[in-house]
């Protein structure tokens, strides 16, 4: 299940194993049969660490979802609540437990209650439990520090949805603290990172916290040979443009259209109806969306996920031919030995064929969208903005889309993009867009517009100086004639636009940020370099031609397209660096803007 985590240069299985060990220890602390009551939000991230089988090994017999009212019946010795430290959840727990106290004598013996807070305990929550009169009912109250979750062999995420909003809108740096803590955990397992680079206010804070935490634990130096050569901390707000653009890689498009959560995508079932599982007797077309796991454990997916979507057709054809040829081999198997060998390959070939069928279906679904007029028109406007065309006028496509009452988030992505590419909109134009939006979608969205202004996404022009064209030119952000089939530059992920964040990463490795001092000054926040002392004898001796390993941490979110771009850099010949990617959250333009919306619940 986790083999793919050791695929990369850094074996992230170690991290996962450490997390599993902690979980096991806690479960064993609550000796005897147990039932877990889950905060629904946690089941996804936990699924990446441990499956039910591990829990079963530690006597977990039942699992329930946390909800109000009475606890469901369960003949177990222990009831453990796995929850985030949120006050409203404490009230539900109290409800679950108090009900018990009031009930008449039960059939089974009294149970022990425990709580596991994820990722941290909270005084406020324990206080709330006390107020509800149930704090004393718990035997074990612990915290399970799940900061960085490995999603793939080169990808870690904290899945902290609110991080961008908290840092850049509410000036709340709690998530940065967790980030620093997560990085300390990482260093405990993979060795001290000798060099820290960063750009942005939040990056600076995280680096400071790391250095301070290191000093506080000065006594306990890890004796592990460092795996990472350097850490690069990047604020999301040095590159607000990239997440707004529609991603054009295969995985990026799946995320844009269907959303990928905890490594799973939910897809419309109709296309997959033909593939019935064994045992399903005469079922009609399934109405449940098909849940598909997407990670590099699936060979075909690993090959195509980061390709530009226009290259997928050819890749799938090629694969189909290879698989067909492999199946044809059966005609060549003459001897018993050869037949035996062929048969032993069958499961693998069947898996490959099923994988091909799935991805062909997905690609067809996505193609329906990318070939639509709406998609094309939208992309055209995006690219106009990115190349600086008419960013200072009211855009008719946006106007028309508002008039047709297209989804609000689509509109917001476009107007924000125009604003970012123009370094703010002229007051008249901003007012016009705002009025059209509020009149068409409702005045309650005023709060969202305020939030977007505060984070710099949709703001009035304060000075006539627009640095974006200079940045674009110096860093070569727009590459005409990007080769989508056989890319030679990271700009293929957006069919011409090179993500600013990744360009900065690329330049840092070679030739270094000194060469772009002027441009760096145009981007918000300080840039810096720190060195951390390594214990004697632990300095890495790199072999001739051996690549450096850099951990890039995006504070505020990263897109799959950016991940693809970094993977591209990693596999570039004589690129010199391989990248491991970490982030507070995997995002796309839609989920990102959504996190900034202040929307009253629909009545």
């Amino acid at each position, binding site marked *: 299940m986790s083999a793919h985590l050791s695929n990369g240069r850094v074996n992230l299985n170690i991290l996962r194993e450490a997390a599993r060990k902690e979980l096991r220890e806690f479960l064993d602390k609550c000796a005897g049969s147990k039932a877990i009551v889950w905060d629904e939000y946690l089941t996804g991230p936990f699924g990446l660490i441990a499956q039910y089988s591990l829990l079963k090994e530690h006597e977990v017999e039942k699992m329930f979802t946390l909800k109000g009212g009475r606890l469901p019946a369960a003949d177990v010795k222990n009831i453990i609540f796995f929850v985030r430290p949120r006050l409203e959840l404490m009230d539900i727990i109290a409800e679950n437990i108090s009900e018990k106290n009031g009930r008449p004598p039960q059939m089974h013996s009294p149970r022990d209650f425990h709580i596991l807070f994820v990722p941290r305990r909270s005084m406020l929550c324990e206080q709330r439990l006390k107020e509800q009169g149930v704090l004393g009912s718990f035997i074990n109250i612990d915290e399970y520090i799940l900061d960085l979750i490995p999603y793939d062999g080169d990808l870690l995420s904290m899945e902290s949805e609110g991080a961008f909003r908290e840092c850049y809108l509410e000036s709340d740096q709690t998530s940065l603290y967790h980030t620093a803590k997560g990085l300390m955990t990482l260093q405990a397992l993979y060795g001290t990172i000798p060099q820290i680079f960063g750009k942005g206010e939040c990056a600076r804070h995280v680096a400071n916290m790391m250095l301070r935490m290191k000093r506080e634990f000065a006594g306990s130096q890890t004796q592990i040979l460092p795996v990472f050569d350097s850490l690069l901390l990047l604020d999301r707000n040095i590159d607000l443009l990239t997440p707004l653009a529609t991603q054009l890689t295969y995985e990026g498009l799946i995320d844009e259209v269907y959303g990928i959560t905890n490594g799973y995508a939910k897809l419309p079932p109709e296309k997959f109806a033909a593939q019935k599982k064994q045992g399903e007797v005469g079922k009609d077309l399934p109405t449940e969306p098909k849940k598909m796991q997407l990670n590099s454990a699936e060979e075909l997916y690993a090959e195509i996920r980061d390709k530009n979507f226009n290259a997928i057709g050819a890749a799938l054809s090629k694969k189909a031919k290879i698989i067909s040829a492999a199946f044809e081999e059966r005609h060549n198997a003459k001897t018993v030995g050869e037949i035996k060998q062929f048969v032993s390959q069958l499961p693998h070939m069947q898996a490959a064929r099923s994988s091909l069928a799935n991805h062909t279906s997905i690609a067809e679904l996505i193609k329906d969208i990318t070939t639509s007029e709406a998609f094309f028109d939208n992309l055209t406007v995006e690219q106009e903005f990115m190349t600086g065309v008419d960013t200072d006028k009211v855009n008719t496509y946006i106007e*028309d889309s508002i*008039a047709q*009452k297209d989804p609000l988030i689509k509109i917001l992505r476009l107007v924000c993009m125009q604003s970012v590419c123009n370094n703010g909109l002229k007051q008249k134009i901003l*007012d016009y867009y*705002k009025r*059209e939006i*509020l*009149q*068409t*979608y*409702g*005045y*309650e969205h*005023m*709060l969202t517009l*305020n939030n977007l202004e505060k984070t710099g996404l949709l703001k009035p022009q304060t000075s006539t100086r627009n640095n974006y064209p200079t940045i674009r030119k110096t860093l070569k952000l727009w590459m005409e004639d990007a080769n989508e089939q056989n890319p030679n530059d990271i700009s293929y992920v957006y069919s011409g636009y090179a993500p600013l964040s990744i360009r900065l990463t690329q330049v840092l490795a070679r030739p270094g940020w000194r060469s772009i001092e002027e441009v760096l000054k145009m981007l918000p926040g300080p840039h810096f370099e720190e060195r951390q002392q390594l214990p004697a004898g632990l300095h890495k001796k790199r072999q001739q031609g051996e690549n450096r390993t850099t951990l890039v941490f995006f504070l505020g979110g990263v897109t799959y397209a950016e991940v693809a771009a970094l993977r591209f850099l990693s596999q570039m010949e004589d690129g010199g660096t391989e990248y491991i990617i970490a982030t507070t959250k995997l995002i796309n333009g839609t989920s990102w803007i959504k996190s900034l919306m*202040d929307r*009253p*619940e629909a*009545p």
Partner: protein
Amino acid sequence: LPYPKYLQEEGWPPLMYLKESKRAVNSIRSLVEEEDEEDDVEKVSWSGEPVGIYLLDCRWSVHDDVILLWQDYVSDWTPEETVKRMQQGKVYSLEKFRSLQDKLLLLDEAVNAHDGNVITAVLIYLKKSLSKEILFRELITREIALRHYIHYLKEIGEQKLLLMQYRDHLNVRDENKRRDFLKNCLSFPFSPDDATHVQDHYTLLERQIIIEANDKQVESSGQADIFKKYPRKASILNMPIITTLYYSCFYHYGESDGTFSSPANIRKTFRISDKQFLLTCLGARAKLKAWFDVDALFTTKNWLGYTKKRSPIGFHRIVDILQKNNAPVQVLQDYVNLVEDVEQKISLAQKYKCHDVIINTYRDLKDRQQLIVYRGKVEKGSSEYRKIEEILSNSVRRSFP
């Protein structure tokens, strides 16, 4: 609190550490000062620390007042009595009011007394002793108290709290409560732009409530045909302004601008742009297949009295909207004809089979070739076919000297 032994021995009741006793000390001081300069009462300043009020000698009058102060403090005054005492500058204690119900009674009494200082003093206590969600929930229905609260928050620089509360309470379910809440929000420290939006939001909801009540009644009584033919699928409450305008153009078209429900009134009140107004009206009238109304939207009389069609948006857009509403070809044709760009005109005409437009355009362009091609596309013997034939033969005649 070290209670002087001699007082105890003489039977004076112990003086508690009074939370509100700063006022008590000051009251005593003022009483003492009234007497005369020769004080034997040690004046103690109040720093909040438990300090005894020591009587250095027996001043009976001061003693009596101290006893009374104490009694006053521990007595159970009703909200009404408490408020009176506050107005009269007498000692009081708000901590007595523990339950939410009691606190609200106190607040309502304070409001009834119309004394701003008293109201604010009560609000300060409520702010301290209630969660901000509960406090705000109660304040949004108490206009006067809310006004004072806003003022107080502004004074102490906590305006942000107001904006948070605005956000948290936008989803009040009951529309009347929401309307009242919005009205009260008008005095929040919004930026001028935002203030305009909140004003519009309030005005809109206020009018929607009126329109909804009226239309519901009319619909159920079966008086108006339009509701019978096109029964309303949803309430107009909480819909955005453009949606409201569409509704108005659908059900209340042609009403004078004196009524809240008329398109003209809505357009004026909410400063809707010509473009938006036109598009919305067009959508509604096209849905109802009211082609004459659609025509009227675009027709303007010039100074010579001739009518001419104008549009702030391209006619190709108009054509699309009409087509989506299944406008008959005769109607579509007129508008396709008005498309300025020739290529676009031809393409639209072909898409929607407006034969006359195509034929006339090619004729005006003198493009025989295309006419011949198009003749092959139309039905043999149809009027379009005959028309093309006629044009072709006419032009042949003319090309001969």
